[in-house]
């Protein structure tokens, strides 16, 4: 039996009895036991874990671990992530009353992804890829309205883009969730031509990742 790790939590009661907790330093990992011969890509397993993840978030905010990590026991977990627990503890304490929300929208004018074969050097290709990605944006009026109505309600926010979509990740107080959903509905009424998806709440995902700068 292996244990799939879902997230890292501040307190044991944030995990149990929803699912089994595994200690890692002075924090707790939420785990789901999986038979060794069951593939992690099993559809029913994924749906089960998505459900457990949602129940855990109802109890308390946690640092989400990207799906795919499984361990045998506490010592293996400690070996794999023991040196990061101090940072996670800081995040969990700082953002205990917050969750993430995301808004995804298609770009106003999608840019073509550069073709590697058109470049003589890897660095030139990477520069072109970066330029093409960062040229992508949503409709200007739509973005202005988001900056006016949604962003001020977030304690932190981050715009992310690729060639096919623009995404706003927001860290918001749980007490502001209804207001943010209302602002999203208003946005949907006023911008019927812009298809977008406002979703959440989510655990600490974007704002706990290593590439996020505070």
């Amino acid at each position: 039996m292996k244990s799939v790790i879902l997230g890292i939590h501040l307190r044991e009661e944030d995990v149990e009895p929803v699912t089994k907790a595994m200690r890692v330093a002075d924090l707790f990992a939420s785990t789901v036991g999986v038979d060794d011969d069951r593939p992690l890509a099993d559809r029913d397993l994924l749906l089960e874990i998505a459900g457990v993840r949602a129940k855990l978030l109802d109890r308390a905010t946690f640092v989400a671990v990207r799906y795919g990590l499984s361990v045998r026991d506490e010592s293996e977990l400690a070996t794999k992530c023991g040196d990061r627990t101090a940072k996670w503890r800081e995040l969990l304490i700082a953002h205990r009353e917050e969750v993430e929300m995301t808004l995804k929208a298609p770009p106003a004018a999608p840019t073509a992804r550069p073709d590697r074969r058109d470049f003589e050097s890897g660095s030139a290709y990477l520069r072109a890829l970066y330029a093409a990605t960062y040229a992508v944006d949503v409709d200007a009026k739509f973005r202005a309205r988001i900056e006016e109505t949604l962003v001020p309600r977030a304690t932190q926010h981050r715009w992310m883009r690729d060639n096919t979509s623009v995404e706003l990740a927001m860290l918001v107080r749980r007490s502001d969730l209804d207001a943010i959903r209302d602002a999203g509905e208003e946005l949907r009424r006023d911008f019927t031509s812009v298809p977008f998806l406002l979703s959440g709440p989510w655990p600490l995902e974007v704002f706990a990742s290593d590439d996020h700068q505070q």
Partner: protein
Amino acid sequence: MADQEIELTVLEALDHLLDRGVVIAGEAVISIGDVDLLYLGLNVVLANVDALKRTSRK
């Protein structure tokens, strides 16, 4: 909640499960090819369901 909205919610939850969160020891997702392939497939489905939802509203 309409069936399409429920389906979209489930797919969005899977999208976050498979593509978000801290990566530990560089082994999540990339170490298991079937999950990676599943995620690629999920993105296609997610885009299609979103498009279907928009179309049905028009």
